[in-house]
Structure formats: C-alpha cells, structure tokens
C-alpha cells in the first residue's frame, strides 16, 4: 500500500511541476487531459462499475459546458462558481434521465443514449433557445486570470485549478467505489436479480449511478469550456460521446487509473494523427477500439494490473 | 459396429458429467441408455453431437467424429431428437418437417418422405400449415421424430421421447419407432427414464450411473437383473 502511496505522491509532484517545464500550449493540452480524465471517470462509474452503457455522455458534457458558458456570460457568475453549479445541474439531469432509462437493458440503453448523443447538436441549435445558447455560433468565454495576483499566467492557473478539481473528483470516486455504494453497484452489474433479492434497491442505485456519472461529465464539460473559452453546438455531436467511449475502452473499465490512461490517449492521439490526414484520428480510434476489444479487453489499466500481479506472484 | 465410444468424457464448464463411457451400437439395432436423473444420459447424446465439450474417442460408421461441429456430424447421418423436442415454434409444421431434409438434394425423394411421415403420423398432416408452437406435446414429439427421420439418417438419437406424454401416446410412439426400425433400417439410441418401455423396445441396453456404465447386456438380461428390477422397474 505504501508503495502505491509513494507513487501517487510522486505523480502529484510531477503534475505540479509540469506546467513550468513545458510550453503554454502543452499546458493547455494537459489541462484538457485532466478534463477528459474527469469525464472518463464519470463514464467509467456508469459503464465499468454499474454495467450500463452510454453512447450519449457527450450530451452531459455539453450540458455542463453550456451551463458554465451561460452562467458566465448571461448571469455574470465567476468561472469557479459555475463548476459546482454545472455539476449539480448534470447530477439532477442524469438522475432524471436515469430513472426511466434504467428500465432498459444493455443494448437498448446504448440505443437510447446514442439517440441522445446524435440529436444533441440539433437541440442546442434550436432557435427558440438561441437567446440563451447563442445558436449556431455558440458562446465565447473570457479566460480567467490567476486570483490574488499570483505569479501564474492564465494557462498555468487554469491547469492548477483543473488539477485541484480533478484531485477532489478522483478522491470522491475512490471513496465511492471502495465503499458500500461501489459494492452495491458491482452486485447490481453482475447479478442484478440476486442483488435485489438481497435488499439492494437496484432502481435507486442505478439512477443514482447515472446521476453521479452525469455530474462528473458535466463538471468536466464546465472545466473544458473554461479551458477552450468557447462552446458551440457542433463540438458536442455523437463523436464526442464516442470519444469518451474510446477513452474508457482503452483506459480500462472499472478502474480509476484507467481514466487517466484513456484521457492521455484521446487527447494526444488525434494531435499526432491529424498530421497524417483529417480523417486519420477517427480511423485510428476505430482500429484501436477493435484492437483493445479483441486483445486487451480490460484496457491499459487492466493490462498493468495483470502484469503487476504476475510480477508479484512468481 | 455403427457407433463406438471409448472413454467418453464430457461436461459443462468446470463440471465433469461423463467420466469415461464405453458403449457400442450395432447397425440396425435399438439401444437404450438407462439411468436416473443426472446420471448423464442427455449429456451422452449431446456429447455424440458435439453440443458439449467432449474428450475421448467416438467412431461413427468407420470414421472418427473428433473435432467435428454439430452440423457436420448431423450431415454424416446422425439425427438427434433433443429433450424439449427443439421444435421451431414460430414456423409451420410442414416447414419444420422440410427443414429436416435441408441437407438432402434429391427433391422427389424428399417429397415422398414428407408423405411417408404424414403416413406414420396422420395427425401432423391435419396440422401441416399450423404454427408448430400451437401443437400439443405429443404432436410436437411426433414432429420432432419426423423431422429427424427426414434427414434419412443412419442413426437416430432420441432424448426421453416419452417425456410428458400420456402412456397411450407413448405406446403408440414406440410402436411407430419399432415399425420405422424394421421398415427403414434406422439404428436408434434411446435415452429413457421410463425403463420398462425402453427395455420393451430396445435390443440392448446400458445402465449409466454418475457418468459411468455400470451394467450392459441385452434388454432381456437387464430385465432379469435383480437390482435393475428393483431400482428401475419397480418390482
């Protein structure tokens, strides 16, 4: 246990040191990695631990992003206040969506969430909502400066802000998963009839799982919007939801560290692939998805776990 | 020998059900596999058709069945009437019948066979256009046997054909099976809990307990055997 703890401390120190060692643009990219990690944590809670598939989590990301954008531009709220608010809105939205959705099993839930993911941009462009959402053009957000005149440029400040939120979210997830809730979710995932027979209120837990998962993704969306300084409907189409799925598959299901691996993958691979061609990132994603399903179904996190288990027991 | 097994082992997942079965079926004979619930009778039939993971030797008609898939074993002339009958519930009676002849090429003989099946089981002719799921248990059993026969098989495996049927119907069915054997020369391997009826129909029998053959012989020998009489024939 202490070895793991030391590793975590080391990672933390490295994370804090990074923005001072790399360019501003790189720092911005790392901020996005953290954002994706939080989103993937959310999706993982739903898919990995609770066994429900969502192909529409991009919609919650969009919801969080737009919450932040609207609260900042229309209500004049400071950026840091919008994050928990976005989380709260998505928690409720997710819970509400989860209530009827939990009647749907596997493939059907995937279908319903897929429909959500595909129709989201149209909903965001709806002209009756234009005064709030800014229609097709979206909303531009101002980049926040470091508070208390700290000697940090905006990119670095944003990185640390996101890092702080990420740490809080990771610790929260860790506690959730280790505790009663986590075990209940796994029980529901693996044998839901038996779980119900043992007194676990499947419906409640499943909806709650959806709500919490949406909250995480919404918080990620909020942070993402602040980092990118911009929200527009077409950035939140079904491919965003698919990107999150890729992250979960590559990173590893039912794993907290998996969120980080997945986030690194989905942030940096497209950058590299873009050099090849506009279409290349998705082709690569697709091939990797297939590869991971066939060869490494437990993702990078699972593979690492297997390797370290092998090394421990000769 | 039409069919021979040596050290046949089979099971489901981690559970081994058959622990080394040796038996043989002569061409043109009716052989019965007797035993209590859970002895492994159904598993044996499934093992012969590669429906479960199998180890050991199975030789059919001179060739080994090792590594073959179910549909290939079937194409070699083994027809299996499974427990539960395996009826295509949403297809018509006639469609079920014709599916039995799916692997056969000769149109005319197939048509003649359809007529012959209706000859054995006139009740099926009445219901030929009806959805098979609406047939009674007895009729579905007749349909299952007919479907197997439409394959023009060398060997027919029957899994508890008497299950859920009224005694009169069972008698009727077994009489038809006897007729089929003499008319068509089809060999049969019969799995039955109803030992009395099975021994009346079969030439030879094997008694299986917990996945092993514990007794074998002609049906008469088994009928005369004291422990068989007491445990399985009830007198």
């Amino acid at each position, binding site marked *: 246990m202490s070895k793991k703890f030391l590793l975590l401390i080391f990672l933390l120190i490295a994370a804090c040191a990074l923005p001072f060692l790399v360019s501003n643009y790189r720092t911005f990219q790392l901020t996005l990695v953290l954002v994706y990690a939080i989103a993937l944590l959310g999706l993982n809670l739903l898919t990995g631990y609770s066994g429900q598939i969502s192909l529409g989590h991009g919609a919650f990301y969009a919801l969080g992003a737009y919450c932040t954008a609207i609260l900042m531009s229309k209500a004049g709220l400071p950026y840091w206040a919008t994050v928990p608010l976005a989380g709260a809105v998505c928690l409720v939205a997710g819970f509400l969506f989860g209530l009827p959705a939990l009647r749907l099993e596997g*493939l*059907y839930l995937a279908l319903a969430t897929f429909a959500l993911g595909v129709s989201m941009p149209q909903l965001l462009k*709806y002209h009756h909502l234009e005064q709030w959402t800014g229609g097709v053009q979206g909303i531009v957000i101002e980049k926040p400066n470091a508070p208390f005149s700290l000697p940090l440029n905006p990119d670095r400040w944003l990185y640390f802000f996101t890092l702080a939120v990420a740490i809080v979210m990771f610790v929260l997830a860790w506690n959730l998963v280790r505790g009663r809730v986590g075990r209940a979710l796994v029980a529901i995932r693996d044998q839901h009839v038996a779980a119900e027979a043992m007194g676990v209120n499947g419906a409640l837990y499943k909806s709650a799982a959806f709500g919490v998962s949406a909250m995480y993704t919404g918080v990620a969306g909020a942070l993402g919007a602040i980092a990118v300084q911009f929200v527009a409907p077409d950035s939140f189409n079904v491919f965003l939801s*698919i990107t999150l799925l890729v992250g979960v598959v590559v990173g590893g299901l039912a794993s907290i560290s998996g969120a980080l691996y997945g986030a690194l993958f989905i942030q940096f691979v497209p950058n590299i692939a873009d050099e090849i061609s506009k279409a290349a990132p998705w082709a690569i994603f697709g091939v990797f998805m297939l590869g991971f399903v066939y060869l490494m179904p437990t993702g990078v996190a699972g593979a690492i776990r297997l390797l370290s288990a092998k090394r421990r027991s000769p | 020998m039409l069919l021979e097994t040596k050290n046949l082992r089979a099971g489901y997942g981690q559970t081994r059900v058959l622990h080394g079965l040796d038996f043989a079926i002569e061409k043109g004979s009716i052989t019965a596999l007797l035993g209590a619930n859970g002895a492994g009778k159904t598993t044996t039939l499934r093992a012969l058709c590669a429906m479960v993971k199998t180890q050991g030797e199975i030789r059919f008609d001179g060739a080994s069945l090792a590594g073959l898939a179910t549909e290939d074993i079937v194409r070699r002339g083994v027809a299996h009437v499974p427990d539960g009958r395996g009826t295509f519930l949403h297809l018509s009676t006639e469609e079920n019948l014709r599916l039995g002849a799916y692997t056969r090429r000769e149109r005319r003989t197939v048509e003649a066979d359809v007529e012959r099946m209706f000859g054995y089981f006139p009740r099926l002719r009445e219901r030929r256009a009806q959805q098979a799921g609406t047939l009674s248990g007895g009729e579905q059993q007749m349909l299952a046997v007919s479907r197997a026969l439409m394959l023009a098989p060398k060997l027919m495996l029957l899994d508890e054909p008497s299950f859920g049927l009224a005694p009169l119907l069972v008698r009727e069915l077994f009489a038809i099976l006897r007729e089929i054997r003499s008319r068509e020369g089809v060999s049969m391997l019969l799995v039955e809990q109803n030992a009395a009826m099975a021994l009346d129909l079969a030439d030879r029998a094997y008694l299986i307990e917990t996945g092993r053959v514990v007794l074998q012989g002609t049906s008469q020998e088994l009928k005369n055997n004291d422990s068989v009489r007491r445990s399985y024939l009830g007198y």
Partner: protein
Amino acid sequence: MDGFLYQVMAGLATGGIYASLALALVMIYQATHLVNFAQGEMAMFSTYLAWSLLEAGMPYWAAFGLTVAISFVLGILIERIVVRPVENAPVLAVVTVFIALLVILNSLAGWIYTYTIKPFPSPFPKEPLFGVHFLSPHELGAICVTLLVLAALYVFFRFTPLGLAMRAAAQNPASARLVGIRVGWMLALGWGLAAAVGAVAGMMVAPIVYLDPNMMSGILLYAFAAALVGGIDSPFGAVIGGFAVGVLENVLGAFVIGNELKLSVALVIIIGVLLVKPSGFFGKVHVSRV
C-alpha cells in the same frame, strides 16, 4: 390540407428508406440479438462505392447492381472477420466493435472521398411519372424500389429453402444445427443481405440529401426508431414502422415543432417506445429468465 397531403406523401418516400434500413437492422437483430450501430455507415460507404463506379463511367443500373453485389460480399466479410469473435462477448464489447466499425467506415469515406458534399444522380426521369404530381419522380421511384426490395426479400424468406434455413437459424440456432444448417454461415448471409439492402437505401436517399460521410447518422436514428416502433424482431413491423416514422417526422416537422428539431422526433420516439412498449407493435414480448 394540400400541404398536409404533400407532407404525408413525402413522408412515405423517406419512410420507404427508413423502412429499408430498419429492415436491415431487424434482419441482423433477429439472427444475433444485436443492434448494428454501423448499419448507416455501411450504407453510406456502399453509396460512395456506387459514386466511384458512376464517376468511372458505368451506366447507372449496372453500377447499382454491382454496388449491391459488392456490399453483399462486404457484409459477409464484416460478419466473419469483425463480428464473429465477439458474438458471445459481453454487451459492451459488442457495442464497442460496432461503434468502431461506424467510426472506421466514416473516416475511411472521409479520407478516400474527402468531406466535400457531392451530388448523387437519380436514375428516374425528370418528368413526373405516371402523371403523379404530388411526389417528385425520384421520391416515387424510391418508394417503388423500396417496395420491390421488400417484396423480393419476403419471397426469399418465405418460399426458398435457404430463406427457411436462415429463419430457422435465427429463431433456434441449436435446433438448426441439428438439421445440419451451418448457423455461422447463415449469420454471415444475413449480414450480407442487410448490407445489400442498406446499399439500396443509401443510393435512394443520396440524391435527396447529397452524398457526404455524415449523411446517414440522422437517417440511422430514424431507422432505429422505426425498428423499435415496429418491433425489433419483426420484419413486417420494421416496414410499417419505417413508413410511419417517415410520415410522423414530416408532419410534425412541418406543422408542430419546426424542421430544426426533426431529429428530436426520432429521439422521443425511441425513448417513448422503449419505455412504454419495448416490444413494439408487432414484436414478441421478451421475458427475462433468471
């Protein structure tokens, strides 16, 4: 009421396309209990293949036929190579594979053909057919082609031994094996047919919405809605559902919610059906066994 009639008629035209795609979805679902999320992209890719053939100078119906044939083969290949390894895998693995397929086909099309929108020709004459004025010639032609395809499929499944074998394999694979049917190949054949039907749907819709790698995502959604409304395991239901969804989309779009939110109609239908009557109007009710 003139506008209403037009919307209904136009809805039937697009409905025919939804019906075709929904039928492809149902065919695969019946055989495998899986929803092919990549059905739309497969149809899109087929349409691009047709476009290439046409660009190379091939006459329309020759290109049409060749595209259908190639799509059939591609469908079989996809089933044997990509889908077979995960046929019995957990749901997430299967969904991931289908989404991967979607994504690969989409980006392949984008890479080979670029993302510029291309026009796709209609084989039907410009003048109104049979003196029909409330539908464009292409819309009428599309309905006819759709109905022809559906009729051909019906005849195939109902009256041919192979069609019977495929139905048997889909309904009861274990029993099908016991009559010597190679169930694996029946599945592949099902995928081939579904791909062929999808190709037809794609070629019928492309002249209306223009050819671009993302042209099928909305249509796929409507096809999902149609398949669910009709009953995901009922081919007949899929067809009825397709026409129903087409008409509903047009009528609601024109008179109730405006054209911008048309896709949300599909979303609402999907969620509504799944909640209220998951087996659809013509499907079979499923009891989940412990």
